């Protein structure tokens, strides 16, 4: 089986292996821990078709064509799964799919932003280590064209909504949630009432940093909205609403040590002094933002590694080892503590290399088990996966990509890809600011699948699409099932299609379209199983 370090120089191989201090590979160690926990429950491996569909949805974000599926299923090579994993990870689409998944996770559907998306894609394409990514998000260099997209994490959250105050507490909370897996919301006003280790000082130490920011609009120098920092020369004071007891803290990573506030006179405090005449907002010498960005994403902060290991596990296994993903604490222990420890340690030892971790996970038997096994999670596809799979199946993606200027009067040019993206997200995605742990089916999504013109349009016969292709075949069952469900039909399913076509013989294309609709609206299609 391929390992990242195989391609490295021999000495490095030795170093890495000894540093990690494990004799077997990570994927084997993961499986050993999962099996130990399962206590003898048998883990049935997924068959090739199920594996193929899963790995495509996870790595590519869509499903393979019938031809690609046929080729994989027919391939007799023993290592074809490992080869497919490598191929999908090496493909340009992998970075885009990761960017989509992390955009939904980190921004929770607060809206789209091109610079942010480009930064995410670029980060995954160059396999930027997670700690470096987080540093760029936490203290963005807004003057650096390559980094400023990362600033959207902060700037979007500081935008004013209606009459409400700038949501500094919300930003503080999300830094804890997204990068350390802790939701400190309740600690804004007092110690957490049900989580003993979440203290008000943990919220306040971060809040001290973020309430010091000011959102600035894009200008000549800054091409995107950006944030300026004020001078902090004293500890931040807070009081519990329960006890009215006052306390203070310097900027501080939760559970960490306080950052020393340098003793600077008012004159010394500025690196660049604010100036009203030139509209210079100023730049302080002491930047708590940068201090936190150095200290939070670091091997010394154990929750940093655990959080991302857990989040990646969730993305690929469908369930977090700790759930909710943002409630790591001692009364909510991991389902498998040894497993989370192992992942966090190994990820740290591999310098937060997410691509490496993802490849290891995909190689595990745990990832490659059958969804019919007890306790296996069936994941609803995200709106993005569902759209990509739907357009892949119906064979309409290329046409939509070309239709940049839709024309409602011409059937083939009726919609653009953007129209579909908007419609699918509106019908299938969760509402904004909700952690997308599970996309819940809703009345809205059911009505959309059943009655919308988007779904109907894609299932009309048109040159080069699924329905037209099937209509030309005397026995379309195999193509239909491979194109939609990425598996071969059973004998019974072939017979059902045959009798369906016979019963609706007057209009074969319509009969095929209806049958394909049923497949594409079925649970088997819109869960990753």
């Amino acid at each position, binding site marked *: 089986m391929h390992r990242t370090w195989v391609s490295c120089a021999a000495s490095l191989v030795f170093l890495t292996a000894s540093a990690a201090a494990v004799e077997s590979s990570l994927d084997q160690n993961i499986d050993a821990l999962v099996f130990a926990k399962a206590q003898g429950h048998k883990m049935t491996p997924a068959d090739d078709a199920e594996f193929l569909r899963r790995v495509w949805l996870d790595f590519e974000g869509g499903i393979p064509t019938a031809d690609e599926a046929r080729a994989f299923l027919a391939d007799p090579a023993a290592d074809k799964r490992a080869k497919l994993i490598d191929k999908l990870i090496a493909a340009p689409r992998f970075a885009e799919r990761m960017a989509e998944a992390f955009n939904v996770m980190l921004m929770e559907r607060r809206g789209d932003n091109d610079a942010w998306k480009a930064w995410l894609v670029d980060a995954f394409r160059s396999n930027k280590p997670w700690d470096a990514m987080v540093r760029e998000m936490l203290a963005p260099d807004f003057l650096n064209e390559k980094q400023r997209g990362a600033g959207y994490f902060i700037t979007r959250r500081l935008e004013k909504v*209606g*009459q409400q*105050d700038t*949501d500094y*507490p*919300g930003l503080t*909370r999300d830094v804890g949630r997204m990068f350390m897996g802790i939701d400190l*919301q*309740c600690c*804004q*006003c*007092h110690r957490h*009432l*049900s989580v003993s280790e979440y203290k008000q000082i943990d919220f306040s130490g971060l809040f001290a940093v973020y309430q010091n920011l000011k959102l600035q609009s894009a200008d000549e120098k800054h091409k995107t909205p950006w944030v300026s920092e004020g001078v902090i020369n004293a500890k931040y004071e807070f009081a519990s*609403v*329960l006890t*009215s007891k006052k306390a203070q803290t310097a900027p501080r990573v939760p559970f960490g040590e306080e950052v020393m506030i340098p003793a600077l006179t008012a004159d010394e405090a500025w690196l660049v002094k604010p100036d009203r005449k030139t509209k210079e907002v100023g730049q302080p010498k002491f930047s708590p933002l940068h201090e936190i960005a150095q200290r939070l994403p670091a091997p010394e902060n154990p929750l940093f590694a655990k959080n991302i290991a857990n989040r990646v596990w969730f993305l690929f296994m469908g369930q977090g080892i700790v759930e*909710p993903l943002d409630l790591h604490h001692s009364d909510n222990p991991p389902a498998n503590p040894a497993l989370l420890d192992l992942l966090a340690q190994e990820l740290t030892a591999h310098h937060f290399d997410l691509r490496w971790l993802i490849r290891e996970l995909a190689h595990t038997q745990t990832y490659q088990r059958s*969804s*019919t096994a*007890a306790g*296996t999670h*069936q994941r*609803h596809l995200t709106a993005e996966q569902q759209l990509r799979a739907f357009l892949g199946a119906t064979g309409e993606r290329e046409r939509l990509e070309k239709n940049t200027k839709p024309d409602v009067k011409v059937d083939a040019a009726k919609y653009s890809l953007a129209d579909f993206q908007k419609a699918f997200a509106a*019908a299938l995605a*969760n*509402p904004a600011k*909700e952690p997308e742990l599970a996309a*819940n*089916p*809703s*009345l*809205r*999504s*059911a*009505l*959309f699948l*059943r*009655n*919308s*013109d988007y779904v*109907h349009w894609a299932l009309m016969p048109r040159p080069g699409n699924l329905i037209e292709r099937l209509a030309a075949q005397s026995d379309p069952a195999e193509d239909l099932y491979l194109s939609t469900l990425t598996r071969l039909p059973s004998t019974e399913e072939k017979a059902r299609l045959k009798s*369906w076509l016979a019963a609706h013989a007057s209009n074969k294309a*319509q009969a095929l379209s*209806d*049958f394909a*609709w*049923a*497949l594409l*609206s*079925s*649970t*088997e299609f*819109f*869960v990753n*199983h």
Partner: protein
Amino acid sequence: MNPLCTPGDHHLSRRAFLGGGLSLLASPVLAEAMRQKDKQVLFVWLDGGLSQLESWDPKPNTEFGGPFRSIKTSVPGVQFCELMPKLAKQMHKLCVVRSMCTKDNAHSSGVDRIQRGDPKNRGVPYPHFGAGVAKLLGPGASGLPPYVWIKPGSGGFRAEDAGFLGPKYGSLAFGDGKPPENLLRHPDISAEQDAARNELRQMLDQRFAAKREKRVVEANASVFDMAEKLMARADIFDTSRLPERDRDRYGRHDLGLHMLVARQMLEAGVRFVKVTSYGWDTHGDNFNAHATMVPKFDQAFSAMLEDLEASGLLKTTLVICLSEFGRTPRINGHVGRDHWPEAWSIAMAGHGVRHGTLVGETNDKGTAVKSQPYDIGSMFHTWYRALGIDPLKTEFDNAGQPLPIAHDEMIPIKEALA
């Protein structure tokens, strides 16, 4: 996030307070018994703030009384503003609370606080009353969406109304009384074709579920079923088939039409129907505005009460009419009235409330409540009680955290309950 945690909040955790009684509450038998009853709710929201002085609590011939007279109602001793002659004849069906005293005098926060029952800050957004009822009573035998909202303007699915209960309990809003997007069968697909392919989909799901955990398939089946039920009752949105006589009785204006659509929804078995009328924020020209708007409300709301009584639905339907606050007794320089949460009125009727009752009173000028004042939390207690739900024994479950369904330091208005 709301930073308005006040000292004293959360001193007692709910769980500690209720001790070991929790397991009883979760009893599926009890839950089922509650669901089986066909109680419904009509919630009429006059957005911006109806003037209590030009409606339920007139003060003619006083400093702030304004130009209108008051008239007798069907209950001796109770008088309404002359702009509500039709409702005056139905006071014997109503329960009017004149002693509302709430906290918020801004629309942006007031609308939300009143509809969420202004509970103590728990760090999570509370559900609107409709979402709470949807959660606690379910969709009922009709299988239709349990919380619908008929309003002018745009429609859609409003997950935020459900707060921590989750999007499932959000409102389904019908903008201008029109059906939600994609409700109707695609024009190019025949009814037989639609039914046949949907049956096929169900068959495929059964096959898929046979080998796996059923939860996911069941969740999908439930939303497709609800979609099916709603599609089958698309007629309740069809205003073109409404009898001309009813159109006249309810009034040929937005509120009249929307109230009529609401009646069809209640008749079809929707659990909770909210009707919103906008434009009540009369900072300027208050009296002309109320002279135009109150009679429309009088007409539509009284026609609704008549019809609900005639069909027997009033026996099982709790009817509530309110705004986010009342209006200032003092008349401003623009001959308007501003926001006044200090002393205003709410009207109720139907199931669980005491008919022909007046609760509380304001002082002579209408500037303050003279009797025991009631905050919105008390109304939530009253409404849940009227629906047969005991707020002391029923709680919401916020991901494992038990939370009270109504403000836990307030009590129901006993004299308003049947």
